């Protein structure tokens, strides 16, 4: 399993919000859903728009370019044009640091 990498501070992602972090040039979006953190590939599997610039709706992340909707926990497409799951990653808070494992 890949190691956890600190990408920022956990308080950078407010509840109901998303933020995009770069790990060696690879963009990872982190969402805070009711205090639970979720990390996934920022690039939408439909037409490469940024999911982190999308909207969180319940347990979904919605890409606003073309309304591709993914389950934020599994990365599975739920509705819209995307048919390929978005890769998800482990994420944790460690002494206030936000850490992601690719």
């Amino acid at each position, binding site marked *: 399993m890949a190691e956890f990498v600190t990408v920022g501070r956990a308080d950078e992602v407010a509840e109901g919000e998303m933020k995009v972090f770069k790990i060696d040039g690879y963009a990872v979006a982190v969402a805070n859903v009711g205090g639970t953190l979720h990390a996934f590939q920022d690039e939408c599997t439909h*037409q490469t728009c940024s999911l982190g610039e999308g*909207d969180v709706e319940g347990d979904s992340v*919605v890409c606003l370019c*073309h*309304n591709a909707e993914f389950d934020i926990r599994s990365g599975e497409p739920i509705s819209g044009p995307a048919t390929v799951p978005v890769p998800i990653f482990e994420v944790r808070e460690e002494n206030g640091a936000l850490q992601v494992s690719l």
Partner: protein
Amino acid sequence: MRRIVIVGASACGSSAAATLRDEGFDGGIVLIGEEPTPPYERPPLSKEYLRGEQTLERAYMRPLDWYGEHDIDTRFGVRATGIDTDAHRVALDRGGEVPYDSLLIATGIRNRQLDVPGAELPGVLGLRTAADADLIRETAQNASRAAVVGMGFIGAEVAASLRAMGVEVTVVEFFETALFRVLGADLGRVVEAIHRAQGVDMRFGEGVEVFEGDERVRSVMTSSGGRIDCDFAVVGVGTIPNAELAQAGGIACDKGVLVDATLRTSDPNVFAAGDVANHDHPLFGRMRVEHFDNAVKMGSTAARNILGAEEVFDDVHWFWSDQYDANLQMAGFAPAYDQVVVRGEFGGSAFSVFFLNGDGAVLQVFGLNRPRDVRRSMPLIRAATRVDPKALADEAVDLRTLVT
């Protein structure tokens, strides 16, 4: 074993097949489509796929293996030629018949052809299928000047892609501005300005009199007597629903295949969905919609209703169009409205417009590079209740908080 037959291996048809399996249906599913390819997204055909930036495989609705894995009997490259609603059979062009217990008609639409001299000349092209897009791309790669006839979504997106490919574009459009029938004059002019800034020459209020050329099209003569020299032409002047199959089978048709709010046709064992389906929408009334998202969602609803769900199709209808760096989105439906509210600067690079009825309810929203506004307005359209117009216009207000 119960067998469900889907005519139309499209976004709609594949969505229906997938939903049937997702819902646990373990009977037979037959998916029949004229094109040799598995179902694919058509939106990229005027954009990423046309410009050669994306393969067709990447636009497949589902990978080719998916159909076998889900025990879908696919008949790609096969045309359904008749429906016998008494015997419950679909006839195929290769001969033979497929029996059904339930039938879904998702035959889509075809391009309206211009009835003018020279319309049959080589180089006068249309866009519906991947093969059409291939021909436009190959032609454009060896050409410098294109005439685009019609500035609806096909014309506008093709014009944008051709400009990106370095082709000079001259547009001939019957109405007074771009996307007039969908967006109206004011928003149409905003789109028109985007194309003008990209160097597209647009001739509005003009029709095509004749396509000229000996072996292939060389120029377009317009109704005012203008001549547009071109190496090829792309025509996007509307569509015709492929309702003949249903009609010949005795199914009620009027501007498409007539379905009720649950997408059932006049025959209780036959459903219709997607572009061909003239459906009875609980908010908007009777309508036929030619957008990708609608096709996918209708396919899903039809599948659930074939399995007995009796679900009303009440989606608020949403679509997008990408032209250059502009992302246009629209949700809802407002053939008439009483009030217009603008969020942001009208005509700027990013703004949204809300169309309200006399009760102050949002009927429709348009966003130029403001997809968040459109997405967050969809619950407002669904709710159909009065919204404070000042709040709609105030960019500091989160639209999600306005849903009551």
